[in-house]
Structure formats: C-alpha cells, structure tokens
C-alpha cells in the first residue's frame, strides 16, 4: 500500500519535472544563435533568402516565441511530440527507432559497472593494503580520469586495428546472414567495446564506494561475531558483509543513472552506435527543436523510472528503509 503511495507521489513529481524539462529546454534552445533554416542551408551547400523564409514559415518559426512555446506544449500534452525539421519524420517514430539501442547500451553498461565494480570493491576491501587493492585503485583512477572518447578511440585502435577482434562501428553487420542467434551474437560483438568504454567511468565509482563501505562493515561487531561463530570467509564476505554494504552503491547507481544516459552521447558518437545519443548531438547542432526536446523528454522519463526502480530495490535489500515511512 505504502509502495503505491510512493509511486503515486513520484509520478506526480515526474509530471511536473517533465513539464519543466520541456519549457526550460525550449527556451534554452531558442537562446542559441541560428536556427533550423541556417542548418538546412548549410547542409544543402547554400540556400536563397526566399527558401529560408519558407522553411521558417513552414515550421512556425516566424511566430513570436511564446506562441511557439504554447503551441508546442499543448501538442506535447496531447501526446504529439511534433515533426523533426531535419529528418522530415515524426519525432515519436524517430525516437522509437533509437530508444532500444540506447537502452540496451545504457542498461548493459550500468549492470556491468555495478557487478564488476562491486566485485573489485569487495576484493580490494578484504586486504586494503594488498597488491590487489592497489591495482583496483589504479584501474578506478584511470577509468574515472580518462575522457570517454579517448578510452573509446584507444580501445578501437587496440581491438579493431592491432588485434582486429571487434568491429569498428555500428550495432549490426548487415552483411551477416543466418538465423536470429547469429544476429544476437553479432550485436553482442558490436556491444563489447562501447559497453567497456561506458562502464569504465562508473565502474571506478562503484568499486571505490564499495571498497569503502565494505571496509566499514567488515570492521563492525556482527562480522566479528560471525567470524567467532566459525563461518567461512566467503560466507562472511558475500552473505553478511556485502548485503549491508550495498546500500550506498545502489543509491549511487540510481543517482548516476542520468550520468550514464548522458555518457552514452559520447560513447555512441565514437562507436557510431545508432541510439538517442547520436541523434541528440546531431539535433542540437541542427537546432532541430522538436527532436531535441523529444529526446530530453524521453531521457527524463528513463531517469525517472531508473530512480524509482532504485528506490524500490533499496527497499528490497534494506528493511530499515522499508519500515521507516
């Protein structure tokens, strides 16, 4: 029952948040110099003044800004995200085409980062001054400080050029034939490098956090009790200590979810991953207002759902939160 209240509360917050996302971004984009007519003229290698005026009139860009905003918001409320100026296609179908690719990348990268990060954190926490711990720290620092696009290009050079085991770009190899299984394998092969690149930043965060919280838990009384009881080391670490040190990691993972989504923009560009990130970047440069806002609308929804799920997961693993409200 009380979970239901939480969800209802969250949903009403979400609606307000989405409205703010739409309005603020609409204003922001219109503050940027240049518009879609400039972009189309550039893309075409030139245009006449009449053609540019025609494009502006066609998309209602010649109306006062408040009228444009009002028209846009009322359309969005009726579920119509508009028509992409640049791609000459409805925004909803444009996003629907891309969302799965981004979700696949983002969710996989987040899971890999969580799983590997936690594992490394645990291993490091058991001997905080051992060589393993130092190596984990090193990896973490490296992953956190290296720019995503640099990591991506380096991985490409190493594993697509020197040791060509992974494809350079894209999500599918259209020349591959065979059943659905070979297509799944193909996508998996294309995913390896982008997922490593995207998860490298977050892996660093999670492993450091997990190490710290694990060390704290390992020093607490009930762990000493467990040791005294004569439980095996793996039982102590994975069953008792880990469960209690996961809270901060999951919370952070929830908070970081939006960062993963924005990180996807860079990774998608480097690896030509056909997701929302590539589309977002292109649309911002093109001043394709309906597409940008549409994407931000959807990303905001992804983040909201992600955060909601985090709250629910936290309740599952920590009874204290469950009983607090």
């Amino acid at each position, binding site marked *: 029952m009380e979970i239901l209240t939480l969800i209802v509360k969250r949903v009403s917050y979400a609606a307000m948040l989405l409205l703010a996302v739409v309005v603020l971004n609409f204003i922001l984009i219109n503050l940027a110099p*240049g518009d879609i007519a400039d972009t189309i003229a550039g893309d075409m*290698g030139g245009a006449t003044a009449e053609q540019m005026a025609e494009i502006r009139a066609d998309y209602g860009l010649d109306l006062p800004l408040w009228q444009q905003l009002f028209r846009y918001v009322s359309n969005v409320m009726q579920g119509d995200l508009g028509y992409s100026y640049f791609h000459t296609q409805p925004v909803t179908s444009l996003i629907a085409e891309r969302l799965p690719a981004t979700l696949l990348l983002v969710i996989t990268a987040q899971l890999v980062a969580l799983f590997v990060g936690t594992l490394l954190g645990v291993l490091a926490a058991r001997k905080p001054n051992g060589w393993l711990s130092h190596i984990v720290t090193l990896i973490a620092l490296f992953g956190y400080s290296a720019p995503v696009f640099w990591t991506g*290009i380096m991985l490409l050079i190493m594993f697509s050029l020197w040791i060509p085991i992974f494809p350079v770009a894209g999500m599918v190899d259209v020349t591959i034939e065979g059943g659905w299984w070979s297509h799944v394998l193909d996508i998996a092969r294309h995913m390896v490098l982008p997922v490593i690149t995207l998860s490298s930043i977050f892996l660093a965060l999670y492993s450091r956090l997990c190490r710290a919280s694990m060390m704290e838990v390992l020093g607490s009384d009930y762990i000493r009790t467990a040791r005294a009881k004569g439980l095996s080391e793996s039982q102590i670490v994975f069953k008792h200590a880990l469960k209690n040190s996961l809270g901060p990691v999951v919370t952070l993972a929830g908070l970081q979810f939006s960062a993963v989504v924005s990180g996807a923009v860079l990774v998608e560009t480097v690896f030509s991953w056909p997701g929302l990130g590539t589309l977002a970047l292109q649309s911002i440069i093109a001043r394709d207002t309906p597409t940008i806002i549409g994407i931000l609308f959807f990303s905001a929804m992804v983040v909201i759902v992600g955060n909601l799920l985090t709250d629910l997961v936290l309740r599952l693993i920590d009874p204290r939160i469950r009983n607090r409200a």
Partner: protein
Amino acid sequence: MGKLSKPLTLAATCLLATGITAGLATAEEPKRGGTLVMSAPQTPRHLNPAVQSGTATGAPGAQLFAAPLRYDENWEPQPYLAKSWDVSDDGLTVTLNLVEGATFHDGKPITSKDVAFSVKTVQENHPFKTMFAPVQSVETPDDNTAILKLSEPHPALLLAMSSQLLPIIPEHVYGDGQDPKKHPQNSENVVGSGPFKLVEFKRDQHIILERNENFFMEGRPYLDKIVMRIIKDPSARAIAIENGEVHLAAFEQSAQNINRIKKAEGVSATADGYAAIGPIAWLAFNTAREPTSDINVRKAIAYAVDRNFITKAIMLGTAEPALTGIHPGSPFYEKDVEAYDVDLKKANQILEDAGYEKGADGMRFKLFVDYGWPDVKAVAEYVKPQLKKIGIDITVRAAPDFPTWAKRISSHDFDMTWDVVFNWGDPVIGVHRTYQSTNIKEGVIWSNTQSYANEEVDALMEAAGKETDLEKRKELYSKFQKILADELPVYWAYALPYHTFHSDKVGNVPAGIWATSSPLDLVYLK
C-alpha cells in the same frame, strides 16, 4: 555547340557499343557480383537529390536516380539517360534524346514527361536557383524527346544535368500533390531510375542498395549490392578501411588519416574525383567594416599569411594551394594571378604607408577571426601569431556549432572568417554567389557575405554565364579571377584535401568529377 555535340554523340555511341566508357577503361576485365561496403560520414536528411543538395544525399541519390548526362574526369559529358543531345547554334534550345525502354524501379517507363517534371521540381525546390534559371519550358513532343527552351544561352546547363544536380524522378510518384521536400518516399520506398534500388535506409546506421536488374545500361551495374555504413568519427572510418570492414570511403579530409592510409598495406588514398565539387578553404574579409574595408589591410594580411606553410605544414602536404575562387581542378582556373607570396616586410610597409601606426604594445589594431567547425581550427589559430608579426592583434572566435557561426557571418557580424565554399561544378552555380553585388543578402550563408561590390566583376560574371564559346568563356573568367585577386574580398588558401580511401580490391574507383556523387555502376570487386 551544335556542331560539337554530333560527332561527340557518335563517338560516345561507338564507345558504348564496345562496352568501354572513355576515361574509365581498365586493363582488367571487371567482375560481376559482390557487395561493396562504403562508409558515409553523415546521415542524409533523405535520399532525393532533386529537393536536397549536398553530398550526403548526393552519393546514395546518384545510385538511386539516373540523370540525363554523366561526366568523365576530363569534364566531358557522356551519354546516360540521354543517349544523345543537341544544343542549338543560338544556345537557346537543348534537345535530349532519351534511351528507349528505360524504366523506373517500379517498372513504369521513364519518359520525357518525367524529365520535364524533374527539371520543374529542381527549379522550384533546389537551393541552386542559377542551375536552371534561364529554362523557360520543357517541351515533350514524344516520349523519348525532351526539349529545353532557354531565355538566354546557358553553358552551365549541361553540367547541371549530371546525377548530383538533376536526378530524374518519376512524376507518377513524386507528382502526387504532396510537398516534394517532405514526400514520404524520399526516405522509404524510393522509386528511382538509377543502377541501384533502395533496400533499407536506417538513419545513423546504413543505407542498403541492391542491383537494379532492369537498369537501362546492359550488363550494369557490376555490383550486386552496396552497403553505405554511416560512421561519423573520422578515426573510426580510417580504422575500418585499414582493417578491411569498409572497402571505400569518400570525402575524407583529415590530413593525418590521409597520410596514414597512403602508407598502409592493401589500401590506397586518391585525391582524384573532387574537381566539380570544388571545395576551397579561404579567409573571407568583411569589406563593409573597418579596417578590413581598406584594401591595404587586406593586402597586408595576404602578404603575411603563408599559404605554403598552410598546405605543407598544417595540412601535412595533403592540400593543393588555391589562388582564386575557382577550384584548381576546374578548366576555368587561372593560376597566373597575384599569389601574395609571404613577405612580412612588405606587409608591414603597406600598413605603415596606409597610416596604421603601431601603438605602445607594438600593435596597430585588433581584429577577430571566426571559424565554425573543427576542421579549420588549426588554420584559424595559425593566423593569430602570424598576423602579430605585422602588428595586428587577433582574437580567434570559435563558434560551438555551425548555426552559431552561420548566424554571425550571414548577419555580417565579423571581421574575417575561415570558410569552405564549394564550386558545385560550373562557376555559375557555386562561384558567382560569393562575388555578385546583387547577392549581398542579410541572413543567408554563402551569399556575398563579404559585401563585395564591383560593377566590372558583375559584368564579367554576367557575360561568362552566357558565353557558349569555351575559349572566350575561359578568357572572361581569367579576367574575373585576376581582378578579384587584386581586390581580395577573400584570401583563397587551399583546395580542401578531399580524398577517397579504398581497398585495393576495388576496381574502377570513381574518378570522374563528382566522386561518389556519380553512378557507381562501373565499380567492381576484384
């Protein structure tokens, strides 16, 4: 012209009969079959070049749609959908005799009515208004004859009838009353007339084309399939060429990548094929604003900037110097103009004589240099220390993206800017617009944003646009280029080093004047 085209037609027909097209003859026998994987640096808005200019649409567009003519690497028109053509002696009538029995991808015949419709669609929607401006009407006495009636002679017309600029689109599809710019069949279920048919267009992923079995040129195309993979990162594209994932990448311009591919095994890089597109990088001056309105200031800057350093050091030897606004690969290029070889002493003297005295800090005045995209960052940055040597204090103003830069330049809010402008074949299409005094327009990028006006130059362009005698036309453009080089509305620096990267397995790499924006029906895999 009328006299010229008859023997040419005859020669071309003979060549066709023996299966060899002039300029593209190869030592080995082309092989049928196979899938060519190409890379494309950007996603086209859609695939219909009749209503969308630019090379992103041009490359797939030239495969999907045939044009009346095609061009070899010597700028000679070749028969394509028009098996022959004739220009009347007064230059006012151009007759196209179409191939008989040619069909669109949906099986319906390609007729002269479709040619008339295509010309009309391009006239109404294409940004390059000058291409077909003098065309008054297109008469269609029978299904295989289209007669273009002109109000004045227009030598650029034949070039404007190649794939990049005049795709023949079916009237029964695109003439259904919808706005052709937003026609749904521009992106899917494209009904074309060219050597390849559309299988799938997935934005930011790929364009898949398959062989048109009923293509009107017997035995062609050689390839079964073309896959154009959209890869936006230039380094990723170079890696894909090197590791063999991609066979052919056109419009590559990163000097580092060009030199790397030149050295790599099994792959090559060629600069051939970009003469008609004709991209020139230049430093444009705002001649309506002080102090760049002063010709002495422009000349001093030209003497201070070292074109040789730019092409050899910054572009790592990949780029060719460009001394005028016409591409060095064009038959109209005049290389015998004032080149302003670097001379700092002279530059300083010019400014001194013109009364620009050095202040206490050693600087005479301040100027901004704009640029709008990362490829020209290095040359933009180079100008700063170089012009400091003649006492000009430069601030480099980078624009975060194209529209920002375009807004600044097109509203004349700049002193100097680096720019890259394309010739698009004939000077009438892509060169005149930069210098015509009638084309000084607020808010339009790549108009005469320099605000340059000279009646003599206007008159020369007007005359050259109508001159049907090639030699006389060359003379007019020669004079035009000399005056411009003297008045410097623009300091032309280099031809953009566009290259085609390709695996050595690719035969008949497109080397005509339109690179991959021309039919790839002769390309094969060894």
